[in-house]
C-alpha cells in the first residue's frame, strides 16, 4: 500500500491507513460525544453528511490540497471517519449511497487536480498509483495525456451511456486509449463510489455514543425523508418491439437477434411461452418444435434454468434493431419504455 502523509489522507480519507491517524492520536470514539474540544469535528462530520444528502459536494478547508495547520488536515480526516460512524449508527442505506457519491466526487476533484499538475511529478505518480492500487488500471502518462489499455477502458466505461464514451469516439492508438486528466478520473467515478460504499458497509457498527444521540436522530429523519421513487407504466410497446412485430406480421425475416429481443421482452412483461409462440408463425423458416424449444429455453423452463433478459438499447443499436424515437426518453433498456418517474415525497 502507499506511504501517505496527512495532507494526502485529507484528500483521500477513504484510503487504508486513515484510521490509524485517529488511533495514533489516542481519541476513543466516546470522547467525540463529550469533549467540547472535539465538537468542531462532530459539527464538520454532520455538515459533510448533510451536504451529501442534498446532492452537494462538501467544500473542505484545504485549499488546493495544502493547509498549513496540521489540525485542519486532521479535522478533515476525522470528520470523514466520524461521518461513517454516524451513518453506521443510523443504519440507513440511503445515507451511505449519498455520502459515498459526494465523497467520491470530492476525491475525483482532487485526483483530477493531481493528475493535471504538469510540474509536480510526485502528485501525478500518487494519483496514478491510487488508480492502480484501487482499480487495477495501468495508467501511463505521456505528454498531456494518460494512456490506458483499451481492454481496461472498455471494462470501466461500459456502463456510461453518453455517446462520447463509446470507444469509437475516443483517441485510440497502439492498443491504448488516450485520455485527459478529467476523463481519466471520470472513468473510475462509479468504482470510486462503490469502493467507498463497500468501505462503509464493511465497517463495524459501534454502540451508540452517548452525547451524539440527537445528531443520529436528526440524520435518521433526514434519511427517511429521502423517499424512494415509484414508477407507472403506460403499457405501450417501444419502437424496436413494434418494428419487430411488424416485420413478423409481414412474413418477412426477423434476424435471430431480433427474435431474441422480442421473446425476452415479452417474457419479461409477463407473457407466457404459449402466448408468444404464435407471433413467429409467419417467419419464413417457422418450425413449431424449434420455436417452443427456444422460447422455453429463454424463459428458463428448460435448459440451464437461466431466464434470459432483454438486451440493452446499446446492444440493440449495435445489432441494428434500435428504432429510437423521442418517446424513448433516454431509457437504456426497452423494458423501461413508458415508465414515468415520480420523485414525490410521501
Amino acid at each position: 500500500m502507499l506511504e501517505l502523509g496527512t495532507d494526502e489522507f485529507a484528500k483521500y480519507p477513504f484510503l487504508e491507513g486513515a484510521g490509524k491517524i485517529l488511533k495514533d492520536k489516542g481519541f476513543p470514539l466516546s470522547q467525540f460525544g463529550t469533549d467540547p474540544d472535539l465538537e468542531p469535528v462532530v459539527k464538520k462530520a454532520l455538515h459533510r453528511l448533510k451536504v451529501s444528502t442534498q446532492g452537494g459536494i462538501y467544500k473542505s478547508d484545504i485549499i488546493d490540497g495544502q493547509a498549513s495547520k496540521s489540525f485542519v488536515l486532521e479535522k478533515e480526516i476525522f470528520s470523514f471517519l466520524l461521518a461513517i460512524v454516524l451513518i453506521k449508527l443510523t443504519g440507513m442505506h440511503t445515507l451511505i449511497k449519498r455520502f459515498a457519491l459526494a465523497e467520491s466526487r470530492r476525491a475525483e476533484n482532487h485526483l483530477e487536480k493531481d493528475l493535471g499538475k504538469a510540474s509536480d511529478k510526485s502528485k501525478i505518480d500518487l494519483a496514478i498509483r491510487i488508480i492502480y492500487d484501487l482499480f487495477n488500471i495501468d495508467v501511463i502518462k505521456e505528454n498531456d495525456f494518460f494512456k490506458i489499455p483499451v481492454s481496461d477502458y472498455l471494462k470501466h466505461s461500459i456502463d456510461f451511456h453518453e455517446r462520447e464514451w463509446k470507444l469509437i469516439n475516443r483517441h485510440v492508438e497502439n492498443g491504448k486509449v488516450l485520455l485527459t486528466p478529467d476523463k481519466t478520473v471520470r472513468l473510475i467515478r462509479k468504482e470510486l463510489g462503490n469502493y467507498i460504499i463497500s468501505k462503509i458497509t464493511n465497517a463495524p457498527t459501534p454502540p451508540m455514543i452517548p452525547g451524539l444521540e440527537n445528531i443520529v436522530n436528526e440524520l435518521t429523519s433526514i434519511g427517511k425523508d429521502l423517499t424512494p421513487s415509484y414508477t407507472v407504466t403506460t403499457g405501450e410497446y417501444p419502437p424496436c418491439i413494434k418494428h419487430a412485430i411488424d416485420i413478423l406480421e409481414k412474413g418477412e425475416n426477423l434476424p435471430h437477434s431480433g427474435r431474441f429481443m422480442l421473446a425476452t421482452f415479452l417474457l419479461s412483461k409477463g407473457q407466457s411461452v404459449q402466448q408468444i409462440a404464435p407471433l413467429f408463425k409467419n417467419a419464413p423458416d417457422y418450425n413449431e418444435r424449434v420455436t417452443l424449444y427456444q422460447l422455453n429455453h429463454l424463459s428458463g423452463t428448460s435448459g440451464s434454468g437461466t431466464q434470459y433478459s432483454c438486451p440493452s438499447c446499446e446492444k440493440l443499436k449495435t445489432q441494428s434493431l434500435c428504432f429510437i424515437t423521442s418517446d424513448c426518453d433516454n431509457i437504456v433498456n426497452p423494458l423501461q419504455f413508458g415508465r414515468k418517474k415520480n420523485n414525490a415525497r410521501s
Partner: protein
Amino acid sequence: MQEVDIQFLEDSFKKYYFNHFDQIKVPERTSEREFGYQKFNSGMTRHISIKNDKELHLLLIQNVPSDVYCSNAYYTFPNSPMNEKDWKEADLIFDIDAKDLNLSCRKSHTISICNECNEVSKNLTRCLKCNSSKLEKKSLPCRNCIDASKTEVSKLSEVLINDLAIDRENIQVYFSGNEGFHVYVYNSQFQQIGSRERSELVDYISLHGAIPETFGMKKLKQDRASFPDFDEKGWRGRFSKQVFGSKSKRSKIITELLSNGYSSFQKMLDDVSENIGVKIDPNVTMDIHRIFRLPGSINSKSGLAKIHCDDLSKFDPYTEASFLSDDSVEVFANCPIEFRLKNKKFGPYINEKISMPTFAAVYMICKKLARIA
C-alpha cells in the same frame, strides 16, 4: 431433405473425414474447450469435451456430423451445463460474410426456394407458383463476393494491428466453408473482456456510433484545427483519407463541411461509416459462449471445408476448399445459376437429370438445388 440425399451427403462427408485426418486438428488448450456437432435433420449436440485429435476423429467417424463446432471460450468444465462451465476467457472471433456486404452482384446469383411448394426461382419476394412469401434464399457466391470479403478481412487486420496493437502472428484467417471468412485473434489484451465490451469493440471496428465531434465537427465554437490531419493514426486518419482525398483538398473541404453544418456532417459520417467501416457480424464477436465452426470440418451449407488461408490474396476457395471425390453421381438438378468448382464450370440446370462429380453434386444438394436421382 430426403433420406437418400442425406445418406449420400453423410457418405461423402465420412469419406472426407476418413481421408483427411491430417487437416482436422483440435485447437490449442483442447481440454478447456467445448465441442458440439449437428447431424442432418437433427438438433445440436453440445457441451462435449474432447482431449485430443484421436478423440475428435473418433467422434467424426462415429457420428458423421453435418457440422462440427468448437468454442472460442476456455472453461474449467467445458462439458458441464452452461452456467456451471466456469468461463475463463475467450479468443476474439470475427465473421465476415459476403451476404452482409450489400454487393450489387448478389441479385444475379441468389435464388429463392419456396417453403410451401419448393419452387426454385430468381424472384426474391414472392413465389411465382403459389404466391407465398415464405422463401428461403440461397446464394452461390461469385468471385466478386469472395474478393469483397477478402477486402473486409484486410481492413479488419489493419484496424486490429494498427489501432489495437494485435501482433500479426496472433491473427489467423480461415475460409468459412461457405460465403466468407472467420478471423481469430489469440493472446490479446481482450481475452477476458465480456460480451458488452466486445460489442463496443465491434462498434469501434465497424465505425459505428461515431459522433461529429470525434472528427472535429462541433455544434458550437467551430474550430478548423480540430479536424483530423491527413496522416493521423486510427479512424481520424482513415476518415480524412476518405473525405479529403488528398492533403491539398483538406482545407477546401473543411470549409465546405463547416458551412454545411452539424447535422449534415452526421449524415455524411454515417455514409463514410458504411464505406470504410469493417463489415463484421456483431453477433459472432459479441458471443462469448459460441461454438464456432471447427477448422478443417465441412460446412453443410456448401460441402466445402473451413480451411486456413496462408496467403489470403491468392486464396481461391472454389479450388482450395473443395475436397470431396470426383466420382460420378446422377442427380436431378434445378439450379438456374452457373457456378465453378475445382476449375470446372457447372450449370445452369433447369429441372434436368445429369451425371456429375460428387463434389459438385454435394454442393448443389447442400444448397437444396438438386437431389439424388
